[in-house]
Structures are given as structure tokens and as C-alpha cells.
């Protein structure tokens, strides 16, 4: 029983609260006297605020205050410049917060925000991403600390000399995270003690950032993130909501909730930066790669340098004697980009895996076999051996289950009336890493156990899986273990991000529980009334350098029907097979895989944002214009995994699984559209207008 708690499909511990409406999210703490805040966005894309007239707003009933750049509380300079809100007159992009209305009710706050008159001195702006832009530069580092460029062999010469060549450009537009719960914080001051209830992926970071900004000792700040309505990267670090709520609460002396309006999210909370990616693949006629060149250009804001690391997967995926993986970035007058599920890997693998499909086409080779033939011995970018790599097994198992062998490889070979049917494949990869965390475990006289760690459950099932990790280490039934998470009074731990949450938290929980188990084994007689407690800190182990390259892998298979009359692409089947170490909870893991595949479906077919050159704003700002997949878009999605043992990861043997499902899904769908239509579309999303234009031009 006990040894099997890891991996078992245990039901979510907070599930009952979520289905009955009892689970409380950040806006749902009704503190006495609570007021509501509403942000006022900048009316220009670049310039300076010259005047903020608050008189009409303050004359409205129920309005308590309007904070402006002139009178808002002064903050220490933040490390993340997007948090320097209301600190000065400069407007770096559309949507930048230039005032904040605070009122007794939501209605009054909203009316007050609309009544604030902001005057700006506008300056010319530039929001157009062009790889030839004069300000483009090669960054030393990308997001997540990768070198901007990796190059070995002589890639240009190797490509020029290749027997078979693919030279192609793929474009991914800006994408928005849009978690269902908007970014929200409720803040309350008691003297110099600050409490915030915030929709965040990691309360430990929120606390340290607030301490720095408000010049407070960390132990005077309490951060609660009990339930979080999704994040997908956009709640990874604090966003302006928590800073503004705390400022407004201090200014008014009242508890204040700021729930960002949906239409403010695209400019405020980060987005996936657009990429223009040039792929050059050179190969022998037998399919062996001789050169892989992946060069990507992206944008960032004037506020901070965030470089979507789209060329990084080329350093992981395929064996080739010559490799170039490089990034360029253009600072523009755009909102600051940030993390969105699998930053780098999601857009990068869309381009690389689409180009691999083009190469298979050029070679007349099966795309599964092409990938198998180029499976490397060691990680191409670093030369390190893989701790485990079972991409080939995922491709083989997926091909078997999908019925790949029966596929007629000729494009446009299968039709049903006006429908063109096609299938496609793409590989997936995501790093398997961990960071230090602390945790405590306590054995109580009644035979139960209490595990405490400031982990966050953004929908992954963290409470449940950590109880399973603890039960496994303690060799007790999982229902005897209680888990407390989501509160900054608990032992600190890193955020739910980078697919590192469970590995990092589980490591600390495992160590605390293993230590507790040995203490209990040595203990005789009844336990003291308050039990026995152990604590663990994995610093120095979780972050130790590894001689291995550690990544999860997977394979995606897709079948689509493209309507040759309307240009609409409908997904018929989507299958993902993963090799992601030990799967710790079969039920919640499957949900994470299929959920990320659904987001990949959106990336391929429905989701896309545009920066309007004239106004400098996103044009798709709400859920009626930015199309996240709906029920009717999502057919049978299946996810499964192969058993993978990897002793070089963490005590559980697990790899992160929150992001890999989006990686490669868009390429599998795009490759299926090519197989269906015979036309290669290289600009996401594959909406009917683009497909129909292609069909009319090429068909």
C-alpha cells in the first residue's frame, strides 16, 4: 500500500471545495471596510504624463482616493521595473498604469477610473517587430539564463555543402496567458504589518519583493495564495496588482482589492513575445543531419529585457556536427513580455519540428524515422550525456497507438467530400530541473502527519502529490498525511514555475519525511503531545551542478480535417506520449498533459494577438477577440507515458510535466495541415482566412 502511494491516481484534496464554490481566491476575502481599486491605463503608447485631473473622479459618490504618479507612495527601486508603478511620469507602453481609483464599491471604482482625466505628451512609438530592425541586438543571455548564442562546427559551410537543405522562416505572434482568474490581490495593513491575499504562483517571491519595495522586514509581511485560478507563467513573479493594492491600502487606511479587468491583462501581466525564426537544416540523402541553424528574433519592452529563448531546443534535440542556435531581440514601445507556458520551447519547437517535417518531405522520408535517425548520443549543445532520453520510445509507442503505419505519406491523399484529412507528428522536450526548498514534517501522537511547505497549487494538485511523496517516504497510508501550502508562514519554497514545483517541493518534503521516519524508528514509547518535527533544506543538493543533461521528452500525433470550402481546420485526434521520469499521480498528471496540449491546440489554430502600429496597443484584448480553445474545439485528446527510471533527478525520480504538453503540439497540428492540404503554412495561428487564402493560391 504505502510504497504504491506515489503514482496512484489520488483524488485532489481541495476538489470538494472547488466544485462546491467554497474554495477562496484572492478577491474573496471580505475584510471589514474593504474598498476596491480600478486602474487607469495610459492613453498613449509612449510619452509622459503631464497632468492628472482627479477632480471629476473624486466628486463621484463612494470614491475614496485617486492615486497618481505625483502622490502615490514612493517605493524602493524594484529589480523588476514593471513593478515601479505610479513612480514617475514616463509612459513606456500602452496600458501602463497612470492612476488608480479607490472607492467603496466596484461600481464606484470603475466609474472613478473612467472619470480621471490624464493628459500626456505623446512621443512617436514603434511596435513593429522586424528582424532587420536597426535596434536589434544579440543578447548575452536569454530568459532562464541560457547563452544567447551557441555555435560549433562550421554551420554556414556545413549547410552550404549539405546534400539536402531546408531554409525556412516561421512566425509565432504574441500570445496571452489569460488564466481564468484575472490577476488579483487583496491587501491589508495593520500598522506596519502587511497582509496580502494574492493570485500568485509563488508567495515566497511575493513576500521578498514587497519587503524590498516597501522597505519592510520580511517577517512583517504575510502572503496568502490558498487557491489560484491558473497562471501559466503570468503569475510567476509579482505583477502590478499586488503592489498597487498594497499602495492603495496604505494610502486609504482600508483593506483594498484590486482585480485587474480582463482587458487590461494583455498589456499588464506579460505575454509570449512574438518570434520570427529562421531554420536551416542540412542533411545527407539518408536523413542524417549535417547542420542545424536556428536563428530567432523577438521583441522586448523598453522597461526590461526579456528574451524568449526560442532557439534553445536546437541545442537539445538532434545530432548534427554543425550547430548554430542564436537570438536577437529588438526593444520596442511594447508591453513587457514574460513567461507563458514553456517559454522558448513552445515557439522554438513549433519552428524546429515544422522544419523537420519539411526536411522529411524533401528527403521523401517518414518524419518519425527522420527523428529516430537523428537521435543523439549526447546533448548537442553541451556534449553532456542525457540522464535519460526516451524520445525514440515515445515516437514508436505513439506511432503504434495512433496507427501511423497506415498513413499514406502523400500530401492531400485523403479527402471526405470537401474535407481534406491529414496527420502529423512532432517531438517535444522540456528541461527537468529543481531549485532549493525547505519543508517541515511532524508526526503527531494520533498517528497522523503534518507536512508544511509554502508551495502553491495553481491547478496542478500540489497538495495531493506532496501528500503522496510524504506518505511514500514515511511508509504510511496517504490519508494519514495532511499538507499545508499557500501561506508565507510556512517553510519557504520556490514558485510553481519552470515545471520545477513538484520536483523542488517534493525533494524537500521527501527529505523531511525520510528524516522523520528514521527518528520515529529510533523512538520508543508514546510521542510527546506536540509530536516530533523534522525540517529539510535542499540547498546545495537541488541546485547542484549535474554532469547530465536532464530533460523530459515526448511525441505528439495529430489528425485534422481542413474544410476546403471555409478554410476551417478541425482537430479530430490528438495523442501525446511522454517520457517524464516517474509519474507521481496518474490522475492529475494526465490532466496537466492534456490541458497543455489543449493550449497547444489554441496556439496552432485559434490564438493570436496583434500589435496595432497606429495605436501601439494589442488589438485582441478580451476573450471574444483572443480565442482560447472552447469545448467545441477540443475533441478526443489522449495523453499517456512510458515508464522511465532516472536516478539522476531527485529522490522521487520525477521530471516536470506542466509544460511539455504544449511543446510540439502546434507543430504536430501544422504538419497535419500540410499533410491534409499539401501547403506549408508558416505563420500561426492557422485561422480560416490564412488557410483559405493558401488553398485558393496553391490549390
Amino acid at each position: 500500500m504505502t510504497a504504491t502511494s506515489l503514482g496512484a491516481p489520488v483524488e485532489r484534496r481541495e476538489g470538494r471545495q472547488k466544485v462546491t464554490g467554497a474554495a477562496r481566491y484572492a478577491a474573496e476575502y471580505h475584510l471589514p471596510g474593504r474598498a476596491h481599486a480600478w486602474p487607469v491605463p495610459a492613453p498613449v503608447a509612449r510619452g509622459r504624463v503631464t497632468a492628472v485631473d482627479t477632480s471629476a473622479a473624486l466628486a463621484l459618490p463612494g470614491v475614496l482616493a485617486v492615486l497618481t504618479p505625483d502622490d502615490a507612495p514612493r517605493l524602493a527601486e524594484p529589480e523588476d521595473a514593471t513593478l515601479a508603478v505610479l513612480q514617475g511620469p514616463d509612459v513606456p507602453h500602452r496600458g501602463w498604469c497612470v492612476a488608480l481609483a479607490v472607492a467603496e464599491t466596484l461600481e464606484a471604482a470603475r466609474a472613478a477610473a473612467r472619470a480621471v482625466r490624464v493628459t500626456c505628451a505623446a512621443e512617436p512609438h514603434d511596435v513593429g517587430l522586424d528582424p532587420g530592425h536597426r535596434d536589434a541586438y544579440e543578447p548575452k543571455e536569454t530568459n532562464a539564463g541560457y547563452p544567447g548564442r551557441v555555435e560549433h562546427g562550421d554551420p554556414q559551410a556545413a549547410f552550404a555543402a549539405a546534400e539536402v537543405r531546408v531554409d525556412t522562416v516561421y512566425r509565432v505572434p504574441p500570445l496571452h496567458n489569460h488564466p481564468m482568474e484575472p490577476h488579483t490581490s487583496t491587501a491589508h495593513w495593520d500598522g506596519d504589518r502587511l497582509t496580502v491575499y494574492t493570485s500568485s504562483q509563488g508567495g515566497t517571491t511575493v513576500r521578498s519583493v514587497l519587503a524590498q519595495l516597501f522597505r519592510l522586514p520580511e517577517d512583517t509581511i504575510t502572503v496568502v495564495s490558498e487557491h489560484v485560478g491558473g497562471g501559466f507563467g503570468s503569475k510567476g513573479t509579482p505583477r502590478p496588482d499586488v503592489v498597487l493594492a498594497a499602495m492603495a491600502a496604505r494610502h486609504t487606511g482600508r483593506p483594498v482589492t484590486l482585480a485587474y479587468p480582463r482587458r487590461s491583462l494583455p498589456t499588464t501581466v506579460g505575454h509570449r513575445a512574438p518570434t520570427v525564426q529562421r531554420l536551416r537544416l542540412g542533411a545527407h540523402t539518408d536523413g542524417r543531419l549535417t547542420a542545424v541553424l536556428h536563428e530567432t528574433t523577438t521583441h522586448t519592452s523598453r522597461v526590461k529585457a526579456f528574451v524568449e529563448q526560442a532557439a534553445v531546443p536546437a541545442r537539445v534535440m538532434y545530432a548534427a556536427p554543425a550547430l548554430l542556435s542564436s537570438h536577437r531581440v529588438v526593444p520596442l514601445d511594447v508591453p513587457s513580455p514574460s513567461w507563458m507556458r514553456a517559454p522558448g520551447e513552445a515557439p522554438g519547437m513549433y519552428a524546429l519540428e515544422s522544419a523537420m517535417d519539411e526536411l522529411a518531405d524533401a528527403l521523401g522520408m517518414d518524419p518519425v524515422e527522420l527523428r529516430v535517425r537523428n537521435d543523439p548520443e549526447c546533448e548537442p549543445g553541451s556534449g553532456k550525456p542525457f540522464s535519460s532520453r526516451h524520445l525514440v520510445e515515445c515516437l514508436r509507442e505513439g506511432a503504434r497507438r495512433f496507427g501511423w503505419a497506415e498513413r499514406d505519406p502523400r500530401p492531400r491523399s485523403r479527402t471526405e467530400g470537401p474535407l481534406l484529412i491529414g496527420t502529423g507528428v512532432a517531438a517535444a522536450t522540456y528541461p527537468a530541473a529543481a531549485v532549493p526548498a525547505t519543508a517541515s514534517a511532524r508526526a503527531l501522537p494520533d498517528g497522523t502527519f503534518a507536512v508544511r511547505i509554502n508551495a502553491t497549487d495553481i491547478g496542478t494538485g500540489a497538495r495531493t502529490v506532496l501528500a503522496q511523496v510524504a506518505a511514500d517516504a514515511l511508509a504510511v497510508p496517504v490519508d494519514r498525511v495532511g499538507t499545508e501550502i499557500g501561506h508565507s508562514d510556512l517553510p519557504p519554497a520556490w514558485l510553481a514555475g519552470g515545471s520545477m514545483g513538484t520536483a523542488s517541493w517534493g525533494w524537500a518534503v521527501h527529505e523531511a519525511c525520510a528524516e522523520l521516519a528514521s527518528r520515529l524508528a529510533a523512538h520508543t514509547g508514546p510521542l510527546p503531545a506536540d509530536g516530533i518535527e523534522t525540517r529539510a533544506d535542499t540547498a546545495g543538493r537541488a541546485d547542484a551542478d549535474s554532469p547530465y543533461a536532464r530533460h523530459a521528452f515526448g511525441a505528439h500525433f495529430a489528425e485534422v480535417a481542413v474544410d476546403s470550402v471555409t478554410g476551417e481546420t478541425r482537430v479530430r485526434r490528438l495523442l501525446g506520449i511522454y517520457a517524464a521520469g516517474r509519474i507521481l499521480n496518474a490522475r492529475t498528471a494526465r490532466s496537466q498533459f492534456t490541458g497543455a496540449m489543449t493550449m497547444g491546440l489554441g496556439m496552432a489554430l485559434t490564438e493570436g494577438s496583434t500589435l496595432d502600429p497606429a495605436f501601439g496597443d494589442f488589438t485582441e484584448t478580451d476573450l471574444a477577440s483572443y480565442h482560447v480553445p472552447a469545448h467545441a474545439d477540443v475533441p478526443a485528446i489522449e495523453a499517456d507515458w512510458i515508464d522511465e527510471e532516472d536516478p539522476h533527478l531527485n529522490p522521487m525520480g520525477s521530471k516536470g510535466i506542466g509544460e511539455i504538453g504544449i511543446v510540439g503540439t502546434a507543430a504536430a497540428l501544422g504538419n497535419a495541415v500540410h499533410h491534409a492540404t499539401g501547403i506549408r503554412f508558416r505563420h500561426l495561428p492557422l485561422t480560416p482566412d490564412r488557410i483559405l487564402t493558401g488553398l485558393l493560391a496553391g490549390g
Partner: protein
Amino acid sequence: MTSANKPAPDSEITLRVNGKPHTLHIDNRRTLLDLLREDLGLTGSKKGCDHGQCGACTVLADGRRVNSCLLLAVALDGSEITTVEGLGGDGEEPHPLQRAFLDRDAFQCGYCTPGQICSAIGMIAEAAAGHPSQVTDPATPSGRPVPLDRSEIRERLSGNLCRCGAYPRIVEAVEDVIR
């Protein structure tokens, strides 16, 4: 400062919410969603977009599913409202659809979940009453119950977005209670 301002126009209305009557003085701008969340503390109904675009705020008004963020409460005097908190009745046991959501792992972050559940309950009643959907075979006799296959369920629940992508599990949960 506040006291000097003219108060916002308000009205008195009476609603039955989850079987209990409530008489409230409300700002005429107040939506049903904000009334539930702010005045009654029924925060199970969620605010995802405040624009009628995501469905997280779905409740039942006189038995029909509605986006509560799009309804002004002042126009609902005398209505009977059921929210996710009221589905299980007075008993300890959750509604069978709530149970099915647990069995199928039909949610992750949980924020769209109350809306999905209320919407599905309203949808099942609509199909039983013979309302067709965009995917219903036009040859289906009108007025008779429409059988809910997977494409009917998907079509009829498409007003309820789930960014975690729990859709296949939600459809299975609905199938569990209509079988």
C-alpha cells in the same frame, strides 16, 4: 469627502437565492454577479471577464443558465437564483454532477468550475425541453428531448471557457450524470 457626494441611484429588490429570500438596497449599476459575490458573500460564482465572454459567472435564474455578469440585479426583482453553493440542497452530499467532476478530475485550477457545473445543469434541462443546438440534426422533431452525445455537449458548453483545458474530462462528467 465621500459624504458630500450625491449617492448613486439605488433600488430595493427581493431575490430568492438558493431558496432563501433576500431584500437588498442596491446600486442600480450592480450586476447579479457582484450582488452575489459582494452583498451575499456567495463567491462561488466567479468573475473571469465581466463581459459575458468566459462563462465563469454562470448561475441559474428561474431555472435557466445565465451569465450573471451581464444581468443588472435591479432588473431581477422576484427572481429565483441558484448558484453553485445551492446545488447540493441542504444535505451534506454534493450534487451528482459535482461528484462526477471529482470522479473525472474535470478541473484543475477550479476557477471556471462553478460556471461549468451550473451551465451543464442548465444545458441538460434545455436539451430535455427540446431546445436544439447548432449541431442538432435539423430532422430532429421539435419539442422532443434532444439526446446529448459528445458533440452536443461540447457545442452547448462552449460558452464556458477552461484555460486549464479540462474539456474532455468535463464532457465525461456530464455524460456520467445523463446516463
